[in-house]
């Protein structure tokens, strides 16, 4: 039987209550939302905490998808299922629905949250790649209601490590909405519900003349961290979308990533996937940008 080591269970009633508990308990405490990453790690004793602070009661406060016109704001406790089922979100950023369809399985998606996924900061985690692709920023709240907003590059410090301090909490993810955009996500996995062998996300914004005004690609499971690839954006900007261009971007993705050979595949195979999935997602993102999605 796998059970976590003993800990004290606390239940947060508001965001500031949760932060107050963190402030008092420091690094001996950890927030738990869906728990589908944290509890398995605690069962294996890869993670041990004296206190777990259950923030599921904050779902009413932090479970939302709001559209402000120039931004989509998603509460950190929004569950995978809610991201998958939101037609409004899929209309603006279809990449979320593409990714959510292949994240874990439907039952796990009833529990797992956006904030939990980002804070787990697993290099194979899909929503981190989605948020990186979209140039999202993270709102981190600390003691006294102090808030700071950091981009994904700054948010991800390293594998399983984020910019969120011991007495802080990720409360919201903000995704900028820009005109004439399209986005897509593709994942190769061995079986339903598995981690990615490799995943790629692409977002493209077109100029009035049909050329690429801006583009971003984010990869998962091909290195210690999920980061964007600025060289791809530079290669795409100002050019007319075409197969050769997607291929060039794919080649940059393949040589920019740092996969390791493991039971999911060889490093060479993963580089091949990074290349191919970058091409496919760029192609789809452009199609969607052209058709108004």
């Amino acid at each position, binding site marked *: *039987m*796998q*059970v*976590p*080591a*003993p*800990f*004290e*269970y606390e*239940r947060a009633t508001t965001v500031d209550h949760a932060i107050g508990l963190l402030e008092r308990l420091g690094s001996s405490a950890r927030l*738990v939302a869906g*728990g*589908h990453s944290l*509890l*398995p790690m605690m*069962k294996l004793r890869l993670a041990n905490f004296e206190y*777990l602070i*259950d923030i*599921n009661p904050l779902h009413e406060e932090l479970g939302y998808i709001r559209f402000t016109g120039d931004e989509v704001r998603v509460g950190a406790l929004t569950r995978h299922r809610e991201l998958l089922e939101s037609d409004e979100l899929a209309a603006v950023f279809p990449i979320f629905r593409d990714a959510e369809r292949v994240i*874990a*399985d*439907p*039952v*796990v998606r*009833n*529990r797992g949250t956006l904030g939990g996924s980002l804070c787990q900061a697993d290099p194979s985690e899909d929503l981190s790649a989605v948020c990186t692709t979209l140039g999202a920023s993270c709102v981190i709240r600390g003691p006294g209601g102090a808030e700071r907003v950091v981009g994904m590059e700054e948010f991800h410090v390293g594998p399983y490590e984020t910019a969120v301090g011991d007495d802080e909490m990720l409360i919201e993810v903000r995704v900028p909405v820009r005109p004439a955009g399209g986005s897509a996500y593709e994942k190769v996995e061995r079986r*339903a*519900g598995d981690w990615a062998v490799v995943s790629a996300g692409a977002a493209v914004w077109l100029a009035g003349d049909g050329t690429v005004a801006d583009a971003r690609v984010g990869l998962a499971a091909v290195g210690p961290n999920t980061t964007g690839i600025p060289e791809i954006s530079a290669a795409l900007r100002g050019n007319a979308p075409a197969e050769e261009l997607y291929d060039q971007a794919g080649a940059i993705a393949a040589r920019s990533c740092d996969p390791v050979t493991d039971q999911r595949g060889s490093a060479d195979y993963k580089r091949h996937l990074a290349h191919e999935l970058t091409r496919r997602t760029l192609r789809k993102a452009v199609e969607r940008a052209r058709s108004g999605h």
Partner: protein
Amino acid sequence: MQVTMTVNDVEVTREIEGRLLLVHFLRDHLGLTGTHWGCDTSNCGTCVVWLDGEPVKSCTVLAAMAGGHEVRTVEGLAKGAELDPIQEGFRQCHGLQCGFCTPGMMMTCRALLDKNPDPTDAEIREAISGQICRCTGYSTIIRSVRWASVHEAAAKQEEVAQA
């Protein structure tokens, strides 16, 4: 710590450790052994129960998290001696052989039919994609859910006709 929750419409209160998982609470503290305990890693899905009406993997939910909430297990599917159409479907269409995955399968499939009374085979497969059956090859499970769907629709029509 003390936890109080509603399980199959009955309020229960127990003294538990914070680290106790919901699956063990149900089985060991309440004696509800219909919920099975399988892989322990939220992969196999035999431990699926409902938490406030949504299927969850109870090996990866703390019992404490369910405090103040409503849990439904496979024991709460039948109405007295009358089987739920999902249970009857599994019986009619050989939706099980060894039965280990069955409680979790039925809880997920019941929730599917509540949301989507006439699912396609692909939708049924998607719904149970986080659950493992090593006996049936899934085909008879799909057939069982279709059986329940068809019979529920027929029963509803009959109700309407009689009204």
